[in-house]
């Protein structure tokens, strides 16, 4: 549970402006596509982000709470920026009071370490695999892990005993295989056969909370991507002429875009509400989070579909920005159990 976030509305806007401004110069959208698959470029940007304090996000919730964390993910999604922030935030939240992990976090904050997160036993997707931890070693296979190509460490959630296993990327017995697909950069499969691991014991409830925060972070990143795709569609509808008029004058287009706005705002309001309830210490925050995830999954995916419909063939070329967002939105919302897991969580809450 959070200690209570202190950021005011003005501070949040400053944070948003500063992240957006920084990414605008260091990760310009016109190069986002080619650089996303370039591990050296991602690593270089990660170092620069450490100078902004962003690799320490999650270390001090009184300074930047979950609301601010989600805001940064929103901006990362908007900029199509694939830095390993997910692993960093969860590592900071989970390990900040663990003296044994001080060196890992110190390197993370200086931008020389990069953590890839595997939800493992807490993933929510039964195909994600599972791991066993015993006698100082981790055994098993985990799929659908992001940020593996640039990772110096893997953080793996373990069910029994409950806690987090920390595995250096060069640990003997660990093999990392890229699994190409919709997500760019590709997700990876981790095989621990077995691998030496540090283990940080944590109550299962706390690990589950960290997994829920990871889901919210991904949903926020998807929101940023969907919002950006929508902004491009709106701009296009105000410029593109067909049949002698702007396509934004057609009610078929207007109502489609209005439905997108409803989806976007519904997602943002529920994500904000979940973060705010976490930051004020409301024990119901996980239910609000589940509602946000259950709604955002289908809604944001629909937004990016409609953005493509509005842009037509112009937005269908891979060099256009929108396909990037299409991939991001789907890859971020389908993982970790997606909307079906969130709906099940709400049903569990209501029905027992």
């Amino acid at each position, binding site marked *: 549970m959070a200690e209570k976030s202190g950021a005011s509305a003005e501070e949040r806007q400053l944070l948003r402006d500063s992240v957006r401004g920084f990414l605008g110069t260091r990760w310009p959208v016109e190069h986002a596509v080619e650089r996303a698959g370039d591990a050296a470029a991602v690593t270089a940007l990660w170092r620069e982000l450490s100078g902004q304090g962003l690799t320490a996000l999650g270390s001090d919730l009184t300074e930047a709470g979950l609301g601010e964390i989600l805001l940064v993910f929103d901006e990362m999604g908007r900029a199509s920026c694939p830095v390993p922030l997910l692993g960093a935030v969860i590592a900071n939240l989970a390990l900040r009071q663990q003296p044994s992990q001080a060196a890992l976090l110190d390197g993370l904050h200086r931008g020389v370490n990069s953590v890839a997160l595997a939800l493992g036993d807490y993933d929510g997707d039964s195909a994600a695999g599972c791991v066993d931890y015993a006698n100082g070693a981790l055994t098993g296979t985990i799929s659908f892990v992001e940020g593996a190509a640039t990772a110096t460490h893997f953080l793996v959630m373990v069910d029994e005993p409950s806690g987090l296993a920390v595995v250096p990327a060069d640990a003997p017995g660990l093999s990392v295989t890229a699994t190409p697909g919709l997500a760019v950069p590709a997700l990876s499969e981790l095989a621990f056969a077995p691998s030496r691991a540090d283990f940080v014991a944590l109550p299962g409830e706390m690990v589950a909370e960290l997994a829920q925060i990871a889901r919210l972070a991904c949903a926020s990143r998807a929101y940023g991507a969907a919002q950006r795709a929508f902004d491009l569609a709106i701009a296009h509808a105000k410029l593109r002429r067909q049949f002698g008029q702007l396509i934004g004058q*057609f009610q078929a287009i207007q*109502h489609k875009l*209005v439905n997108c706005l409803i989806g976007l705002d519904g997602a943002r*309001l529920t994500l904000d509400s979940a973060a705010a309830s976490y930051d004020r210490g409301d024990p119901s925050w996980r239910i609000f989070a*589940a509602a946000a995830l259950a709604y955002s999954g289908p809604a944001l995916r629909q937004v990016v579909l409609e953005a493509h419909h509005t842009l037509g063939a112009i937005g269908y070329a891979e060099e256009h920005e929108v396909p990037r967002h299409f991939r991001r939105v789907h890859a971020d919302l389908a993982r970790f159990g997606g909307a079906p897991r969130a709906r099940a969580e709400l049903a569990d*809450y209501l029905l027992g």
Partner: protein
Amino acid sequence: MSTLPALDTDPAVGRFRDEVRQWLAENWLGERQAAHDRKPFKERGWDAEFSRLLGKKGWIGLGWPKEAGGQARSPSEQLAFIEEMRYVEAPTGFHNVGETIVGPSLIKYGTPEQKAEYLPAFLRGERSFGLGYSEPEAGSDLASLRTRAVRDGSDWVINGQKLWSTGGDKAEHVWLATRTDPDAKPKHAGISVFLVSLRSKGITIRPSMAMYGKTFSAVFYDDVRVPAGALVGEVNNGWRVITDALAAERVMIGNLVAHLRRVFDKVTEHVKTASPGGRRLKDDAVIRDRLGGLAAEIEVARQFVLRNARVVESGRAPLYEAAMSKVFAGELQERLSEAALDLLGSGALLSEDAATAPIGELEQVLRHSIMGVIGGGTAEIQRNVIALRGLNLPRPGGG
């Protein structure tokens, strides 16, 4: 009963909510509500005696300014009040139009005489109004209305026809939109609003049953004379009066959302406890998935309503935000009641008059759901508003 967690982040709002709940427990729940529920369905929701009780408590005009006799409560407090009232189906039909549309308009545009005559009566829960907006040829395109008001000496003479007026057969007065300049361009520049007694000579009211189980009326005006003092605001400035009145009504969307929460909670309770044919509904993965999805949508509807309140509190009129919440909540009522048919099966078809109905109101909620989508500005019109005001898209038509 299982329900989504409470969301009052302001302790003052939470305290007021508790006070309202306590008062309703003492003054509505129990015998008064039971007596109300024994009335035929079409009579429910309209209770002059309860409105007077509420007025005596000082809880009509919660959002009105203090100088007008109101309590100047914050939008969040008003919302909490509306939610608590609706969640227990406390009747507001008698005073609702006066409180939310006529009163706020008179505060802004009324003469001292109009204010003196109507405002205290509204606050006491002693005066009922219906709306006279739609006509056979003026539904979504309200500015095309044709009911004529013509000046004749010190009176106005009204001729025409209004349609689909809910409460038209029960109310004492009507808030009537008329055309006072047939040549005005644009056409909404020739509209004026009048306060008219429905007992006036020349008025014929013909109620008919709407699908949701209550009446709406066709009201005919044949040479109906009203005094000059019945005109609200300036002649031909009625469009402004009408649209401002809609602004005052915006927090009311919380009413529908509270209703949906109540219906959803009942469905949840049924799923939680029922075992038709020995099969527990709550063990069915498909039912759980559907119910979880609806819970998320109910939460979204609540967030939209809370945002409206925040926008009003920030001093801005939530023009497109309110339209978004209305579209979402209206269409959610359709989805919720359609889903109930799948969750409960044939049992959801049975009304409260069927002894074996699992939840006897779902089929009514389904019939009623159409009203939320077409009434008070259809979902298509709302989307037009959002496209223009929220997205700044160009107006349809033209080059």
